[in-house]
């Protein structure tokens, strides 16, 4: 609690100058008294407790977890169970990381390579057929993923891609296309077309103009999509579970956690270390880039 008060007072120091400048800030400040600080502090503790339990218990043996789940016995902490989880025969988590990162990279690269050019053509053309195409992609953002799993299995089986990495990556990429095209086309619309004309005068074709001139300017919006796609591929459970199937031996981090944890759900010396290993990379990524990630994921949430 004392740590919180320190941060609070430091935060107030930081805003002292602007408060003097803006009188309405004072009313805000009056409200932010002790009760508010205490309440928000309690809420923060409630939100963070599960994470604390997860991290602390990943370093404790089963008896210690059962006897004192919230305790932090500094002397008794051990990385033994973490390393057990790393070498779990049920689920090789290092391989899970590799597979997941492969999927994340493949989906992101393919998604940008497909959605970028088509968004460029749509944004730079006033033709009716391209406006219709944009509307079709837009309608795609309303398709609920749950409805798709069953018929996609049918499509992938027909194409001979069921249970393959190619089929999975193709489907995950397709899921990213509607929103990507929509975002990219909107963004390209704000880039002056005079840039394209200058490139055309210099003899560059359309493809070259897009990749060399326009694409480098799209960095912010591509970053948003990459964040969004990375989290949705990493956290996806249904699609890899069904399309890759347990029989293929290909586990992403998320389907691997399911395979490793559901069988031992009361052996907490397996549960906590496995869960910690599954979320650690994402949490680090989140803490480092939180502002971009919050705005990126929120943009993705509103796509409906």
């Amino acid at each position: 609690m004392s740590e919180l008060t320190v941060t609070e007072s430091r935060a107030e120091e930081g805003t002292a100058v602007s408060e003097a400048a803006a009188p309405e800030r004072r009313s805000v400040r009056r409200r932010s008294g002790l009760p508010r600080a205490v309440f928000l502090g309690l809420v923060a503790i409630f939100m963070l407790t599960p994470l604390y339990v997860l991290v602390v218990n990943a370093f404790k043996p089963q008896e210690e977890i059962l006897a004192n789940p919230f305790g932090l016995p500094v002397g008794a902490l051990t990385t033994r169970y973490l390393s057990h989880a790393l070498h779990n025969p049920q689920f090789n988590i290092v391989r899970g990381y590799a597979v997941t990162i492969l999927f994340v990279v493949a989906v992101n690269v393919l998604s940008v390579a497909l959605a970028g050019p088509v968004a460029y053509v749509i944004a730079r053309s006033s033709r009716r057929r391209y406006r219709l195409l944009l509307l079709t992609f837009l309608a795609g953002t309303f398709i609920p993923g749950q409805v798709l799993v069953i018929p996609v299995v049918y499509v992938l089986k027909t194409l001979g891609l069921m249970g393959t990495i190619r089929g999975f990556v193709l489907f995950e990429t397709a899921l990213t296309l509607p929103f990507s095209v929509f975002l990219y086309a909107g963004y390209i619309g704000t880039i002056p077309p005079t840039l394209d004309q200058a490139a055309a005068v210099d003899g560059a074709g359309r493809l070259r103009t897009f990749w060399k001139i326009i694409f480098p300017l799209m960095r912010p919006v591509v970053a948003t999509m990459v964040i969004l796609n990375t989290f949705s591929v990493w956290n996806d459970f249904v699609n890899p579970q069904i399309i890759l199937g347990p029989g293929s031996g290909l586990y992403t981090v998320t389907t691997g956690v399911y395979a490793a944890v559901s069988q031992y759900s009361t052996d907490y010396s397996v549960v906590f270390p496995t869960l910690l290993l599954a979320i650690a990379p994402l949490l680090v990524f989140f803490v480092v880039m939180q502002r971009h990630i919050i705005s990126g994921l929120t943009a993705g949430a509103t796509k409906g």
Partner: protein
Amino acid sequence: MNFVKRTKRAGDGAATLLMVVPATVVFVVMLVVPVGLAFYLSLTDWDGYSAQPKIIGGSNYTHLFSDPVMRHAAFVTLLVAVAGTAGMNLLGLGFALLVNGTSRINRFLRVVLFYPHVLSALVVGFLWSAILGTTGAVNSLLTAHGGSVLPFLSDPTWALITMIAVLVWAGFGVNVVLYLAGLQAVPRSLVEAARIDGATRWQVFRHVTLPALGPVVTVNIVLSLVTLLKTYDLVVSLTAGGPAGQTQTVAYLILWNSFHDNRLGFGSAQSVVLMIVTGILALVVTRMRRRGEMAVYS
């Protein structure tokens, strides 16, 4: 000159095709065709293996509406969606008002409220079941201090409430961020004018801030509803549908019927119904909200 120009344009046409066709093909084959197929498969007895599923007409649908398991799942899903939407939006708006501002503590709190959304629902469910399960952290603590075990996940009613609470815990951070964005767009001058006219804080909120937030509220409600209606991962990891199938949602049944019982035709019918109900609910909420917004302004 004319010739050069024409080949250049033809080359451009080819380039344009190259830019448009691949994305369109992937989109159509993987998203548009499956939506149509979902309707077709819902009229068949497809088991996931046969290449030529037999068409059995509407019997999947009649079966579905008379199935008591399905009815209970529909009830659970609606309850989760409505209660969860209420919780997420009350907390979302409330905390948006509390952490509005750029001080360091506000920024820290926003991160703390948002972080569960970064974790997969599967991990969130396993984590909370390790905390609230019969031998979980909370119950270990209770029994160690002479208390008795609380049935967070082992009693049907408790399990439902726990599930809704965990869904809200994991999801309302998004609502906070969306409401915060909405609050930035509320005209400062309106709020100040009301304050100068002697309005209390509550009056300002009720008659200035809330009406100005109208569209944002609609977006948030629809978003929460649509997300919660397809709750699946968390059911798998938190309760596995139990105890005794009492927390099975529609999405859980769809995947269970399809991939555990190999009744993908039946599952398709369920998912078609879920899609239509979701669409109707989203539309109804948007309509109702629009009428409400008009009433406020008229």
